[in-house]
């Protein structure tokens, strides 16, 4: 009985020690977390050469390349932000940006359309 009371007091002391510490949480809408350097957020495409490697490594089939109309499409509804496309792109055309608040009210806004510059000679 005495032992039990001793342990209860000891554990209460441990809890009280934490009372005077700063909070570790972040009040989200007011304060925002700054993502680290390698963060995998919304994919951004620049100077695509149409080699099509990204479509072959994408696990969910989120990327479609329309060579005729010169449009590069990423469907964010399908994208799982794995970063495979950015890692395997030989031209460094795809980059994962730090943008992470991607919610919208229109479905169409989630399909990203990027214009392609020159076509790759190899294909």
């Amino acid at each position: 009985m005495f032992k039990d009371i001793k342990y209860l007091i000891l554990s209460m002391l441990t809890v009280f020690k934490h009372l005077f510490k700063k909070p570790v949480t972040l009040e989200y809408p007011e304060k925002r977390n700054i993502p680290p350097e390698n963060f995998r957020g919304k994919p951004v495409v620049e100077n695509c050469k149409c080699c099509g490697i990204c479509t072959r490594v994408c696990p969910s089939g989120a990327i479609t390349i329309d060579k005729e109309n010169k449009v590069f499409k990423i469907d964010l509804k399908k994208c799982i932000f794995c970063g495979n496309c950015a890692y395997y792109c030989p031209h460094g055309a795809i980059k994962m940006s730090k943008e992470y608040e991607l919610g919208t009210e229109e479905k169409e806004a989630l399909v990203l359309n990027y214009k392609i510059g020159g076509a790759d000679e190899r294909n």
Partner: protein
Amino acid sequence: MSKLKLNLGPQHPSTHGVLRLILELDGEKIISCEPDVGYLHRGMEKMAEKLTYIQYLPLVDRIDYLAGFFYSELLCRTVEKAFEIELSPRVKAIRVLLLELNRIASHLLWIGAFLMDLGAVSPFFYAFREREIILQYFEKISGQRMMNNYFVFGGVRRDIGYLEDVENFLKILPDKVNDYEKLITENPIFLQRTKGKGVLDKKTAFNFAITGVNLRASGVSLDFRKGDYLYKDFEFTPVVLEEGDSWARYKARIMEIRESAKIAAQALEILKRENNLEQTLINPLTLKLPEGEYFQEIEAPRGLASIYVKSTGDSKPYRLKWRTGSYYSVNLLRKILKGAYLNDAIAISGSLDIILPEVDK
């Protein structure tokens, strides 16, 4: 007296997913327990047959979202062994460091969730606070907190950095674990709810193919890290406790956190010594696994995890099978809950560390 059939779950806050237990009660005593799994089935194994290896690699983190590194390590290892690629010491150390940090994070979450099941709230916040440091470190090096996708066939995606973060974390961790122990280990309420409850003896554990911490808490010294080629240069002692009850499983996890921290510290030493990252990466676009069958295993936080791949020499596996530790722990509930009281059902099933995405795959 008539028997009562009671559904525990599938949406119960303490099942860490969706597990349905069909309990048959006589008063407050459980006569039989029938676990009903499959609510979280995503077809992980069937999916592998339609995807190439590199397309499948980001998805394996989702088999067990609390210990994703272990499963991507298994898939990478399968390919590396098939092509007989020797990893450089730095890559090995990176992998060991991340695996052990992942194990600590997984055990920390378990401590929080288990104590929450028993009605204690403060340990949950303390454990999550420390886990957050690990997850933020993972985010810094790999880009995401849980779905890391950091290991690739033949090495890692980019060189590791921010080692001082890990150093600081390993410095404060023993103190924090002491804090948990002060709060929990000898607490009379905790002792009453766990001591002697849900006893798992050696024979039952073997019959139900239990591995990992649950087995080691029952007095069997079986740690698959001992024979693992990644852990060859690391010194550690497997945690073995004799009692086999819920309390022993708790204590074993606490001790394993300390042990993992030691391994991580050793890995850190190697990383400071070996500075250049040499790796032979496999081109994923031409990757075709030679015809044959492949099998690899690793000690995951929830028991032995293993992969079986049958390849016909194509760029996609013909058949891929995962073995995960939690699946066997769920099956054990049939035996271990029989004769227990309903009040203890959650405490016992919580102590086994069941994670449902791992069970249903």
